[in-house]
């Protein structure tokens, strides 16, 4: 026991948070704003309690920082090495992830539109695409590093391949959901194939497309980071993780993971916001 008082304080905080949460969860307020507030408070309090417990246990029992650094130490590292983290973020996220994500999703979308014109190709590509989506595509990383070199281009290539298939499969599936009634209506308007596509089938496919965009936003970050384990210039989030692990600077690794988690959640949130404004008509977004 190195710091028993801190441990006890943290445990008390955790118990208090737990007790408050139990009380809060049982309340059923009349006003909706209060209900939203409670629904927001509970997970935040839970997260804070978890952080406090983490801090208390690591500091209280004197857990070696190599094993698990306390959150305060990680936060200190984040604030102290902002420039390194920013450079890594720029290399991995702003260059590799965004370029690869845009190309992979765009390509998947275009191929889906092309394939959609022919039932034969659709029947052929869907099973293959579904199969490939389940494969460990991340394994092509060493090949891409060989082909496109150490810089961000090879990481973007991995991201392109990883994001292509989910987008393809989801878009093709989405283009089929427009109902017969609506199609017949468009038919009576004498709409052309393209009008049918842009005014009916693409809007109807949007929930599926956004689903793919969401899946891909996480996949893209994973792809770029893991591809950097196979060879990279001396900058980048994957490089930072594998290099600092070698020197047992675990707090720096946690700092990088924090940045990755932040980037992942923010991009997911942005896509979800965009989805809500575009697919405002969808049942899951109505009546809120």
């Amino acid at each position, binding site marked *: 026991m190195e710091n028993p008082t801190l441990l006890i304080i943290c445990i008390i905080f955790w118990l208090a948070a*737990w007790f408050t*949460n*139990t009380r*809060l*969860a*049982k309340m059923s307020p009349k006003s909706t704003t209060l209900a939203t507030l409670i629904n927001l408070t*509970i*997970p935040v309090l*839970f*997260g804070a309690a978890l952080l406090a417990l983490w801090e208390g246990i690591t500091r209280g029992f004197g857990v070696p920082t*190599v*094993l*698990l650094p306390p959150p305060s130490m990680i936060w200190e590292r984040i604030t102290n090495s902002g420039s390194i983290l920013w450079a890594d973020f720029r290399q991995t996220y702003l260059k590799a992830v965004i370029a690869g994500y845009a190309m992979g999703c765009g390509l998947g979308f275009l191929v889906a539109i092309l394939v959609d014109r022919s039932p*034969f*190709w*659709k*029947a*052929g*590509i869907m*099973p*293959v695409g579904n199969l490939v989506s*389940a*494969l*460990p595509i*991340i*394994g*092509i*990383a*060493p*090949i891409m*590093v*060989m*082909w496109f070199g150490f810089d961000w281009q090879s990481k973007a290539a991995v991201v392109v391949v990883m994001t292509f298939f989910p987008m393809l499969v989801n878009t093709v599936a989405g283009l089929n959901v427009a109902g017969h009634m609506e199609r017949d209506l468009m038919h009576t308007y004498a709409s052309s194939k393209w009008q049918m596509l842009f005014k009916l089938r693409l809007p109807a496919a949007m929930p599926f497309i956004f689903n793919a965009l969401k899946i891909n*936003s*996480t996949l893209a*970050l*994973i792809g770029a*980071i*893991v591809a950097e*384990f*196979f*060879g990279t210039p001396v900058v980048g*989030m*994957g490089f930072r*993780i*594998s290099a600092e*692990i*070698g020197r*047992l600077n*675990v707090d720096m*690794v*946690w700092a*990088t*993971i924090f940045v*990755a*988690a932040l980037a*992942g*959640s923010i*991009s997911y*949130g942005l896509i979800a916001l965009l989805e809500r404004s575009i697919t405002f008509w969808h049942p899951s977004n109505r009546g809120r």
Partner: protein
Amino acid sequence: MIKDRALPVLTVVALIIAIWYAGAALLNLQFEYDQAERIGKQVSLSEALPKTMAQERPVLPAPHQVAVEIWQTTAEKSITSKRSLVYHAWITLSATMLGFVFGTVLGIILAVGIIHSRVLDKSLMPWIITSQTIPILAIAPMIIVVLNSIGITGLVPKATISTYLSFFPVAVGMVKGLGSPDAINMDLMRTFNASRAQVFWKLRWPTAVPYLFTSMKIAIAASLVGAIVGELPTGAVAGLGARLLAGSYYGQTVQIWSALIVAAILAGSLVAIVGLVGAWLNRRMGMREA
């Protein structure tokens, strides 16, 4: 029926193989020209083309080269040999399965807790959804190295990563599945004066089984990815991930591709097995195929 489905799929597969061959010829041609130039000789396209299919370290190996390599390293080597892909695949598979079983059990327990407790539901669920947006795989090397440094080596660290990756889909799917019984059925159970445990075993669990298998398909694929990535930082000792890393260190492209294809076959069969068991169970439980 089968003809309608098989023909398009076979066409696509044939097309992929054709593109692969064309790509191999195109990408490897430059090397043949460079070789010829070095010894001061001119080669025609028709002379260079066959050679592109049989290079030692091609930029892109031709499909038959990979097939031969896989045959040699699986069927013609004894299974215990370190050069056997069966040996490496087994190492990866055992970590995958261990992690998958742990992850599934953990996910189900968590889902049962969330379904039965409002506090858990409100405090855990937002975090579980947020955690889906985080590139968890980035933690893999740290888990391996940290567990190694306290003396835990071998299967367990890799299985830990697989557990981590596979329990999220199961937890999310099972929360949905266990909450899916219709209000009308729940009311019926109430009129029977059923206890919580009875509602769980006789209504919630059976309705959740299809959800369980759908999430298990995702989970087992994620679990395999976790095991492969988990083999990277330990310095290429054994397993499919290690074969990938060793191949990339020494420029052995044929080795990389064969490890990749074996990993793909493994993933495909694992997902297929889970799917088949799920379909069989659904039929036994009297459910129609959707």
